[in-house]
């Protein structure tokens, strides 16, 4: 039983990470009906942004708390700017093209970003040990052991998700985002600059992905140019599981997937060797039995 709860809490940590990345997939899909397959790489480049700041810029005498804060901010900004840049140069010119064109472009952007880091980052084909800036230590909750880092990952993810939720459901810009997702032409008739809203959506997804990049480095150092691929696919699965386009669904899907993965790794024979495959089993099952996802609406009505 104790082991079960241990796996459950490990699943929560993983799930928090998946949920943060999944939000970027789901928001972008909600607003432009594009699966942004480059989103995993936006997450990866964010992690490299944070690493670069720490490794090349910050003085080593800086207290680790401040360093962590700066690494986090720079990673978030890196991903956000990259997401906005990709939208502007790769997706916006294809706004009215057939659906397949931006999708293939997204895959191209994904490969281009991976290869850029591999080829042009100093010694880019080799993994980078991510700075461990958070105090080491564990807490014992009735036999379940959580590291301080685990708690930090879950707390930061929750704070970011609640902030996003408040923004989307309480602010005027958030309302304009939801309007654009439901009916872009009519949103324009309300005075909404939909191009601007689309950029904001990519930026928000990027901010969360950049934060996830740092968290990934904290729980699974080293980072390399490939980490965006698996993390991106899993987060995409989480978004589909929750119901793509649905923000609450992405969070639910992220945590569900993290927990399924942690439990399956423990309880399925030879599970740890198959660790990365459970997500795709889940994806196949969702697509077969509930293609709209847990919270998805059946069909979007659009005149």
């Amino acid at each position: 039983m104790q082991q079960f709860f241990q796996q459950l809490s490990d699943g929560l940590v993983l799930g928090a990470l998946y949920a943060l990345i999944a939000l970027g997939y789901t928001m972008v899909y909600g607003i432009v009906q594009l699966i942004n397959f480059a989103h995993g790489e936006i997450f990866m480049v964010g992690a490299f942004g944070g690493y670069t700041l720490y490794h090349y810029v910050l003085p080593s005498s800086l207290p680790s708390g401040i360093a962590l804060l700066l690494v986090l901010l720079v990673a978030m900004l890196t991903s956000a700017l990259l997401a906005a840049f990709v939208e502007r140069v790769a997706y916006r010119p294809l706004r009215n093209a057939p659906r397949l064109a931006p999708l293939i472009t997204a895959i191209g952007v994904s490969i281009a970003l991976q290869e850029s880091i591999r080829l042009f980052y100093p010694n880019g084909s080799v993994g980078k040990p991510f700075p461990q800036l958070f105090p080491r230590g564990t807490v014992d909750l009735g036999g379940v052991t959580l590291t301080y880092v685990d708690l930090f990952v879950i707390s930061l993810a929750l704070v970011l998700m609640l902030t996003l939720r408040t923004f989307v459901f309480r602010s005027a810009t958030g309302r304009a985002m939801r309007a654009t997702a439901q009916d872009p032409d009519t949103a324009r008739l309300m005075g909404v600059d939909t191009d601007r809203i689309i950029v904001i959506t990519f930026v928000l997804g990027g901010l969360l992905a950049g934060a996830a990049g740092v968290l990934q480095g904290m729980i699974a150092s080293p980072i390399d140019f490939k980490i965006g691929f698996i993390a991106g696919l899993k987060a995409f699965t989480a978004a589909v599981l929750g119901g793509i386009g649905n923000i609450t669904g992405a969070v639910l899907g992220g945590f569900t997937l993290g927990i399924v993965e942690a439990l399956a790794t423990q309880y399925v024979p030879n599970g740890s060797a198959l660790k990365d495959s459970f997500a795709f089993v889940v994806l196949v099952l969702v697509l077969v039995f509930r293609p709209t996802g847990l919270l998805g609406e059946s069909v979007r009505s659009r005149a």
Partner: protein
Amino acid sequence: MSLLEVRDLRVAYGAIEAIKGISLDVEEGQVVTLIGTNGAGKTTTLRTLSGLLRPVAGQVLFDGARLDKLKAHEIVARGVAHAPEGRRIFPLMTVEENLELGAYSRKGEAIAQDVAEVFERFPRLHERRAQKAGTLSGGEQQMLAIGRALMSRPRLLMLDEPSMGLSPIMIQLIFDTVAELKAAGTTILLVEQNASAALALADTGYVLETGRVVLTGTGPDLLTDENVRKAYLGED
């Protein structure tokens, strides 16, 4: 000078020209109606005026300034509101949120007061203010679409088929609303298939056929015009 001047407007969907050179004027405080059958180009005209479609030729002047090169959101900010065909309310948002979105281009100033005014005009919406707009009846959705358009405090209100698909009681209520707005001095460009009700309210009417204006006159004149009666008012 008219509030809205449209000069030789041409709009095409790909190679097909839907609007083949339309000119019309809307004076401040007037109700102007465009009537005509399906495919005459009424909706296309409104969508072009509000910036959702780009004309291939012609000019749109609003208060003397060109609108035809502006984006839709800039046109709203100039004071042109458009309640689109099919109502197009945001179904997953509450009635109140829909109204607040109508005021998106204004930000801040006295929005709560204007929401209250819409509720006063349409008490049904007040009862349902916290409900998702998608759960409203067709008539209620049309009230919401009109109320939402008014929230931008427009100088020109464009209504596209506000009576479409509604029950006779609702149709009456919607035309009463248009009459009230007219009495209050609102400038309105009204597109309708219900030609008799529209012409009865209108200062000026334009009859459109396959992308061209084929007849113009005052509302009462067109109402009694023999050709109009035959073609659009179902008399033989």
